[in-house]
């Protein structure tokens, strides 16, 4: 198993838990779509799986071991709002090379213009910024990508282009891909398995009792 989350509980406020005994597993090379109503905890689960948030209880194993606390994290999260995921005071060339040095070929595939590298985030549109966030996360050390509404702010042609690149990379590198989305059409198109958030919660025997 690439990622194995067991019995995850999480709450932002006391006595108002958002995740209760959630189990989730994903294999390498698998493309899983996670769908569910707004505000149900999809993004929270995504952040827990990527190690951004610490669950109150439960374990997350990556290839059988806990996620590394230091160095490059093999599970990369791409946020729903790119403008919140980049440093507003950094030029984009610096943001792009935070984790690794992407080759020019990748930038071309992602539709990143050379001129954009010397700009600040406020000078680009949301869709343009998101391409940087995606390229930044696609280091060869990445083993699993969690895409949280990754293409919601892109036009459909760019969406199709970016998913084309992502799917080819995922195929070639045997990446695990978790796609959080509201669009069933997209989920059915690109994923091998669709998981409804409600199922995750209901399936667990602890919740049935």
């Amino acid at each position, binding site marked *: 198993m690439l990622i194995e989350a067991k019995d995850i509980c999480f709450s932002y406020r006391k006595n108002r838990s958002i995740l209760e005994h959630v189990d989730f597993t994903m294999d390498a090379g698998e493309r899983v779509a996670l769908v*569910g109503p707004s505000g149900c905890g999809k993004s929270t689960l995504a952040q827990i799986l990527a190690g951004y948030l610490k669950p109150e209880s439960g374990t997350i194993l990556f290839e059988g071991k806990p996620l590394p606390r230091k160095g490059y994290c093999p599970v990369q999260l791409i946020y729903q709002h790119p*403008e919140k995921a980049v440093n507003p005071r950094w030029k984009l060339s610096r943001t792009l090379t935070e984790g690794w040095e992407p080759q020019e070929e990748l930038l071309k595939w992602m539709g990143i213009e050379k001129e954009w590298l010397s700009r600040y985030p406020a000078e680009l549109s949301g869709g343009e910024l998101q391409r940087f966030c995606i390229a930044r996360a696609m280091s060869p050390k990445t083993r699993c990508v969690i895409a949280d*509404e990754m293409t919601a702010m892109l036009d*459909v042609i760019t969406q199709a282009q970016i998913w084309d690149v992502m799917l080819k990379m995922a195929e070639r590198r045997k990446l695990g891909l978790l796609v959080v989305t509201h669009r069933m*059409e997209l989920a059915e198109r*690109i994923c091998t398995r669709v998981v409804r958030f409600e199922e995750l919660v209901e399936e667990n025997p602890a919740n049935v009792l």
Partner: protein
Amino acid sequence: MEHKEPILDIKNLSVSFRMYEKGLEQKDLKVISNLNIHVDEGEILAIVGSSGSGKSLLASTVLGILPKNASVTGDMRYYGQPMTIELQQRLRGREIALVPQSVEYLDPLMKTGKQVVGVRGTKEKQRLAFKRYGLQREVEELYPFQLSGGMARRVLVSTAVIGDAKLIVADEPTPGMSKAMAEEAMSNFRTLADEGKGIILITHDIDLAFEYADRIAIFYAGTTVETALAEDFGRGPEALRHPYSKALWEALPQNGFKPIPGTQPYAGSIPGGCLFAPRCLYKTEECLGEIPMRTLRGGEVCCIHAD
């Protein structure tokens, strides 16, 4: 029937930014060029198109909230009156409301309920709007960082609909919302339009737009390439006029998910003639010349090969 003045009529709009190039050298970067749109009372005009084609800039231009280094030329009229800076200042927040694209527009230090009430709203109106969008009572006591993406988006929509605006500019109101919620938001916009308001709906959810909008303007590289009736999108690529619109249709996940190669021209290096020509299958010599906007099958198109 008496022809009514459109709420907003924009002709030949161009927006450019003054940027520093090298040292103290400056250059003008034209990001919107020769753009024409109009919105009538009781109408939803959807604007779709590539990311970075100037859709959100258009919203800022209408409200007059562009940064200082921007310059605007062209003719913009509100109920026939020329849109001056003073008029924009008077109208925005009162008669023209904005649903901003980014959830960053929320004040991080203010509880959402208070933000939605704002300067001119009331608690009752805010509660009504929250109820309409399925936000629970306790959401008004939360700070923006405590909201999920879809919830924040619904708070933003609430801010715009609680006033008595005649024109609502909604910049991508639906991403992050579930399908049912997005449909609910759209049908609310429809109701508002049926009450006589004008709505500019900037969106990437084409399939949602054509169900609720009246007309759809398709943007590419800072200008409109086509204005189509909303039904045309339902009927498929044959009913559409511009090759870019057809490509948009074909790129929808349910219609093939087919990407066309290339990217839209960058604002600094706009080619002469047709802006879409470098990526177009029907490109000929004539495409490099001046392309006028012409009327075709009840819509407008900026392409010499469309028929």
